[in-house]
């Protein structure tokens, strides 16, 4: 099922000591994280999409327009994209405002001013516009760089580890802006990162890069819980569940989050009823019971079906549970091998997932 909005990318590159070989269909909406270790080829793939790297014989189509095929190669400056580099790479000889205007002046279309104001607003950089890049902090520079890419009103936004060069505090400063971007942008975003944290916050889809090829690609919640992939087996393995704020309990200061498969109770959120909320649940915070224990302090107990088990080490197992009527919402649980045997867990068995901690991820 290929929609015309999709991004089709096929690249083969052979360099000394490195090879890239991918054939991907990426969704034309939402944030797709290209995730992998350094040297896995994720940045090279992004640069191929931008045309900054030439992969002879490659193929790239975005939303039905061919940017590269066997016979022609659209140079970067003719591609309707926005690119955010790892370091902000603002032009040091121009003020923040002139940096924003640099690309805007070169794009045809009368929407320029509105786009500029919108980008300035979205990234909260109104007060910084008259400063030069060397008068901005690392986080501020990166916000200006993101705005500079958005002002172009690109058809595709490419971000190469935009937070990697920043310290923890600066990251926390920018993350909310990226989340706003995620909620408000209509265009597809390819987001290169090696941080599981950023993936959990921002990604809708995931491409798992390994040694220059895509080991797996698909919706985030699915890939994070596939037992044959390293994510589900990591120490910090977790599941992502999209929910909607269903109500608040002012008496106990709780909020209720509904999803296809049940309801979570979490600490009171400052968020209106009906708003989406993405939550992350660590595999180590999920235990499994055969009965619905109401005599427990655990608030979130959800009916689930065992789908798959895999040994993690010599004493632990990781279990993928399916929540909801068709068991379509995946949830990871990490338990001991002993418990798996005692509960006689096998695929298809109906159980209850006891979730100790549900964390908001957006």
């Amino acid at each position: 099922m290929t929609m015309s909005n999709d991004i089709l990318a096929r690249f083969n590159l052979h360099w000394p000591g490195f090879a890239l070989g991918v054939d991907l269909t990426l969704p034309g909406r939402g944030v797709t994280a290209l995730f992998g270790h350094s040297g896995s080829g994720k940045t090279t793939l992004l640069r191929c999409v931008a045309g900054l790297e030439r992969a002879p014989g490659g193929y790239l189509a975005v939303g039905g327009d061919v940017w590269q095929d066997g016979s022609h190669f659209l140079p970067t400056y003719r591609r309707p994209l926005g690119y955010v580099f790892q370091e902000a790479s603002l032009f040091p000889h121009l003020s923040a405002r002139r940096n924003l205007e640099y690309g805007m002046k070169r794009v045809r279309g009368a929407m320029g001013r509105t786009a500029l104001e919108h980008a300035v607003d979205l990234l909260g950089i109104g007060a910084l516009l008259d400063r030069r890049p060397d008068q901005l902090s690392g986080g501020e520079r990166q916000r200006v760089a993101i705005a500079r890419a958005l002002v172009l009103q690109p058809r595709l936004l490419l971000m190469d580890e935009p937070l990697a060069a920043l310290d923890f505090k600066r990251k926390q400063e920018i993350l909310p802006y990226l989340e706003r971007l995620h909620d408000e942008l209509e265009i597809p975003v390819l987001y290169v990162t090696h941080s599981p944290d950023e993936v959990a916050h921002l990604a809708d889809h995931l491409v798992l890069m390994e040694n220059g090829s895509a080991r797996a690609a698909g919706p985030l919640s699915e890939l994070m819980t596939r037992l044959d992939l390293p994510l589900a087996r990591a120490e910090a393995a977790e599941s992502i569940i999209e929910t909607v704020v269903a109500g608040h309990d002012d008496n106990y200061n709780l909020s209720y989050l509904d999803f296809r498969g049940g309801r979570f109770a979490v600490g009171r959120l400052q968020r209106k009823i009906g708003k989406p909320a993405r939550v992350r649940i660590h595999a180590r915070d999920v235990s499994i019971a055969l009965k619905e224990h109401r005599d427990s302090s655990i608030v979130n107990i959800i009916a689930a079906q065992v789908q798959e088990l895999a040994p993690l080490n010599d004493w632990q197992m990781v279990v993928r549970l399916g929540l909801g009527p068709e068991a379509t919402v995946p949830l990871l649980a990490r338990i001991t091998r002993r418990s798996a045997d005692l509960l006689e867990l096998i695929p298809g068995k109906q159980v209850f997932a006891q979730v100790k901690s549900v964390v908001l991820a957006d």
Partner: protein
Amino acid sequence: MGFSDADLAAIWLTLRLAGITTVLLLIIGTPIAWWLARTRSFWKGPIGAVVALPLVLPPTVLGFYLLLAMGPNGAIGQFTQWLGIGTLPFTFWGLVVASVFYSMPFVVQPIQNAVESLGERPLEAAATLRAGPWDTFFSVVLPLARPGFFTAAILGFAHTVGEFGVVLMIGGNIPGVTRVVSVQIYDHVEALEYAEAHWLAATMVIFSFLVLLALYTLNPAARRK
């Protein structure tokens, strides 16, 4: 006592020669420097070495071969004759051509260094912001590499003012045509006119000092560091 008319003619000729040479070198040297800074070709080494040759060759050697090349049987001479402008030795434009070769490294190397230190990133950023190659050159490279171009222009100009051996080989000593300041000083000394020689020589010392002073104090890159 001061400059004689012949001295003034020599000064004017020298300034004209150095000015024209500098402009030509900025035009010719920039693409060469750009290519040298960015190519990964095998030819980077050989071409770079050829450009740098005037740094180590005795000016007479360079002048000798340029004289042959520009002569009636040389490649440049054949070309200029085919164009119908005769041969270049012992003309002002012969000096210009020789000076372009002679001062080439002084212009190419500062620009090459500036472009190299610029790196790929600003060029890539400009490309993602819809700037084509020429646009990028004028809106990003030129402003960012300005100190390099400034240094190149000053060194190219000053080095051309200071040439002597090549001028003698190519241009000889024709008043108003090829007799530049350095040759004029030589003539004064030969004629034992030491006072006149002093005037010109001291002027050259002061000029050279001011040029270098400007280079070290006005250059924005030098000031920033």
